[in-house]
C-alpha cells in the first residue's frame, strides 16, 4: 500500500462521493429491507427513519428490530448495539493510520460515517486520504441508507423479490472489487485475506459475528506480520 502523501486537490470531496457509489448501490437492498422490517416490527415511519439517520449501522439496526420484536428492554438493546459495533474501534484505528492530519473536529465529523463499507473503500485507496474524501464516501453512503430505509418502509413490499435478492450480492461484490487490485500485486494480501476468512469461518461457530470478525482480523494481521518478519530475517 502506498503511503506517500500528496498535496490535496480541491476535488477531494467529489472524489470520495464517486468512490462511494458502490456502497450506495449496495445499501439499497439492505436499507429497503430494514425499512420493510421496521414497518412489520411496528415502528412508525418517523422511528424507522430516525434510527437509520442517527445510528447508521446495518447489522445493529437489524438486531435491534429483532430484540424489539422479542420485547427486550432498552438497556439490553443498547448494550447489544455496542457489542456489535465495537469492531469499528479497530477499523477506525486503521482509517486514522491512513488519514492525513487534520483538525480533530473534522475527524470527529467524518467518524460518524465509518461503517464497514466506508472503512473498506477508504483504507484500500492507493495513497493517503483526507477528511474531505472520507466525508464524501460517508455522505453518499449515508444518503443511500437513510433514503432507502424510508423508501423500504413506504413501498418495500412492492419491489419484485428477484431484484431484491440479486441486489443482496452488491456489497460482497464491492468488497471483492476492493480487494482484487492489491491481491494481484502483493502476495501478503492473499495470505491476509485468506487466513482471516478461514479464522472467521471457524470463529463464527462459537462467537457472535461482530466478535468473530474482530478476532479473525486481529489474529490474521498479527500472524502474517510475524511470518513476514521471519522470512525477511
Amino acid at each position, binding site marked *: 500500500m502506498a503511503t506517500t502523501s500528496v498535496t490535496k486537490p480541491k476535488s477531494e470531496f467529489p472524489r470520495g462521493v464517486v468512490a462511494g*457509489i*458502490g456502497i450506495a*448501490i449496495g445499501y439499497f437492498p439492505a436499507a429497503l429491507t430494514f425499512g420493510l422490517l421496521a414497518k412489520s416490527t411496528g415502528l*412508525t415511519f418517523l*422511528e424507522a427513519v*430516525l434510527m437509520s439517520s*442517527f*445510528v*447508521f*449501522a446495518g447489522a445493529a439496526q437489524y438486531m435491534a428490530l429483532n430484540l424489539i420484536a422479542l420485547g427486550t428492554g*432498552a438497556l439490553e*438493546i*443498547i448494550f447489544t*448495539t*455496542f457489542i456489535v*459495533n465495537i469492531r*469499528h*474501534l479497530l477499523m*477506525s*484505528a*486503521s*482509517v*486514522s*493510520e491512513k*488519514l492525513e*492530519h487534520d483538525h480533530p473536529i473534522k475527524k*470527529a465529523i*467524518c*467518524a*460518524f460515517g*465509518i461503517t464497514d463499507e466506508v*472503512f*473498506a473503500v477508504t*483504507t484500500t485507496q492507493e495513497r493517503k486520504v483526507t477528511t474531505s474524501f472520507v466525508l464524501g464516501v460517508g455522505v453518499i453512503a449515508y444518503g443511500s441508507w437513510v433514503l432507502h430505509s424510508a423508501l423500504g418502509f413506504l413501498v418495500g413490499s412492492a419491489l419484485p423479490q*428477484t*431484484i431484491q435478492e*440479486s441486489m*443482496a*450480492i452488491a456489497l*460482497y*461484490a464491492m*468488497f*471483492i*472489487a476492493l*480487494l482484487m487490485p492489491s491481491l494481484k500485486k502483493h502476495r501478503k494480501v492473499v495470505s491476509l*485475506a*485468506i*487466513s*482471516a*476468512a478461514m479464522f*472467521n*469461518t471457524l470463529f463464527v461457530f462459537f462467537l457472535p*459475528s461482530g466478535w*468473530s*470478525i474482530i478476532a*479473525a*482480523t*486481529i489474529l490474521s*494481521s498479527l500472524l*502474517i506480520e510475524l511470518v513476514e518478519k521471519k522470512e525477511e530475517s
Partner: protein
Amino acid sequence: MSMSMFWLIMGMAIVTYIPRMLPLVTLNANRIPPKLQAILRNVPYAALGALIFPGILTVNEDIWFGIIGGLTAIIIAYFGANLIFVVIGAIIVLSFYSFFI
C-alpha cells in the same frame, strides 16, 4: 413517537458513534509505534477477507447464489474493471440465474 423509542435510538446512536470516533480523534498516525502501524496496515485486507467469507454464502437460502455471485465478481474484478461494473455485473448474472432457476 414514544419517548422510550426516542431514548432507545439515542442510546444506540451514542454507542455506535463512540467506537467510530475515538481512535480517529485520539490517534495521531505519526505517533503510533511502527510495529503497530504495520499491523494496522494489514487490517483492511484481513477485515475484507473476514467480511466476505463465510457471509457471502448466506446472502440467500440457495448457497449457489453467493458462490456464483462471488465468482462473477472475482472474474470481472480480476480483469481490472471499475468497481461499479463489478457490482452491477454480479447483480445481472444473479438476476439471470434466479430467473432461470
